[in-house]
């Protein structure tokens, strides 16, 4: 396995008037070529910010440190112009909330063809045919009719499939999808999984940001768990769902309806920015003296990386 994207000590901080919000704090992550990686965590854990960082999309007020290496270059030090040849062409983004991600006054087919128009020399006719082919492949049917329809006439599941089609259109090496199953009902979720499976089978590296654990289970090779801006566990998917190590990961699995619907006690706290302890210690049932110092990512004998002193 070769590493395709290497995130090294990435921090994205938002300075406020009196404090600093550490959305992403010292994240190290090596994404392997052709793997499917699921980043899970609750809202506010920093998973979306991590995803947009890889594309070099930052809100104007934040401060960024660390590096993200892709294809021998540090994405964080590229100019906007250089980044444009990566975004959409090499690394594509499938945004959250498909209903507001598309231009409501532009035909869907034209929007799906946009990356091709920007990144290739193809003519209109060729792009048109390619888009019809994509629509057919991602089951946005019937393709001719859907090509010239506007987003409002699509159902949620169909829009999500159209967005994936748009992400894949320029044949990128990596696709990052943000919450692709949010607001999609269980019955239609199957078709979203099927679409991503098609993408994966084309040899595209997938990074899926989600809090839908069954969806992650369905697709991912590895699971990354984030909590309060930190990665707290990186595990093989099969191992994670049978034997999660971090107390927070175990709590997440227990809060699934099929596993008893047991809530994690307490709630995410706005920690003092200078706090040096384990971020989960106020909700953890297994706290010791050592938890006042934050543990490093510890390699467990199973190969899982976990940020918890219990496995030292």
């Amino acid at each position, binding site marked *: 396995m070769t590493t395709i994207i290497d995130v090294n000590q990435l921090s994205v901080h938002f300075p406020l008037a009196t404090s600093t919000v550490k959305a992403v704090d010292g994240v190290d992550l090596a994404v392997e070529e052709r793997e499917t990686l699921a980043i899970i965590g609750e809202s506010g854990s920093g998973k979306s910010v991590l995803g947009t960082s890889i594309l070099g999309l930052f809100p104007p007020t934040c401060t960024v440190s660390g590096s993200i290496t892709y294809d021998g270059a540090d994405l964080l030090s590229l100019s906007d112009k250089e980044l444009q040849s990566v975004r959409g062409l090499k690394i594509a983004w499938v945004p959250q909330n498909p209903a507001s991600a598309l231009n409501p006054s532009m035909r869907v087919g034209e929007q799906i063809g946009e990356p091709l128009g920007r990144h290739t020399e193809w003519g209109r006719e060729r792009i048109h045919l390619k888009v019809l082919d994509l629509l057919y492949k991602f089951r*946005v049917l019937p393709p001719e009719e859907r090509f010239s329809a506007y987003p409002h006439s699509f*159902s949620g599941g169909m829009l999500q499939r159209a967005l994936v089609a748009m992400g894949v259109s320029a044949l990128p090496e990596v696709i990052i999808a943000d919450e692709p199953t949010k607001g999609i009902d269980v*019955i239609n979720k199957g078709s979203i999984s099927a679409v991503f499976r098609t993408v994966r089978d084309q040899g595209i590296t997938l990074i899926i940001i989600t809090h839908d654990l069954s969806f992650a289970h369905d697709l991912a090779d590895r699971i990354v768990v984030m909590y309060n801006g930190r990665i707290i566990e990186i595990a093989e998917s099969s191992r994670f769902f049978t034997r999660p190590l971090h107390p927070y990961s175990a709590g997440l699995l227990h809060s699934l*309806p099929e596993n008893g619907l047991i*809530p994690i006690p307490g709630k995410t706290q706005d920690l003092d920015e200078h706090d040096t302890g384990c971020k989960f210690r106020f909700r953890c049932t297994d706290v010791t003296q050592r938890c006042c110092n934050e543990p490093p990512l510890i390699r467990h004998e199973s190969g899982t990386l976990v940020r918890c002193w219990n496995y030292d």
Partner: protein
Amino acid sequence: MIEGIGLTKNFISENNRKKHTRAIEDVDIRIDKGETLALIGESGCGKSTLGRILLNLIPPSQGEVLFEGQNLAKMTPSELRAIRWKFQIVSQHPDSALNPRWTVADSILEPFRIHSKMTGGRDQKRELERLIDLVGLEPEQAARFPHQLSGGELQRAVIARAIALDPAFIVCDEPTSMLDVSIQASIIRLLQARQKEIKCGCLFITHDIQLAKIMGDRIAVMLDGQIVEEGAGILDHPAHPFTQKIVSPDPHETVPELVPVCNCSSRACSYLPSCPSRSPLCNSYPKMQEYGDRRVRCHLLS
């Protein structure tokens, strides 16, 4: 306690008066005191419309809703106002359910202001303390505005408002579909506990099968505006082909969702286009029939 008989709702297009969309059709539904009916179905199948009709938020095109034996459609506005407090809703989007210009406390106390005749003697400050304690909010959070709270906290506030007057019936319209799994667990536990306390009936609308199993005393499956199967253990032993499909979906299936057929003429079974076990009989419209512990709308069983 609440009962809908032969409910049908046609929405008429604003632009084209001839264009009708049949949201629900010929639905019989009954919820007893203290009971939870979980209603499952795809998006767009009419689940929310049914909930709204039961609450008398929109009138049905045909059929009637009986609440404690009284026909809601035949009541005068003032009679209706007098019993309105008995039914409440917890909606899917907590961020749009509260008035953005009121503090959360103002919203939670609104039922007391609206029904002041009935609740005139109660001390609002004490009631607020009682309610926010019941749903697990901090007093400091109740003084904030909705945009300053997270989705889970807002949903707690919406629940506090819904249970403020000890209603007899609550419609929960996908109350956790926009929340994280860990938050979902705590909100569902909260709903269960409060429901047990005030012994109210509940229509729990969801598309999560596991949640429906946990919440529902009985479960109803909806497809294209009709209830196709209803009973207590139907998710463990599904009889209708559609229930069978949603209980154990084929993970390798690539066929997309059903395209709803919304013509208003007499028609075939709604599941006909996708049903694996269809027969020529299925071109006619199946009736809801009782089979032991359940009611099913399918020709296969008769």
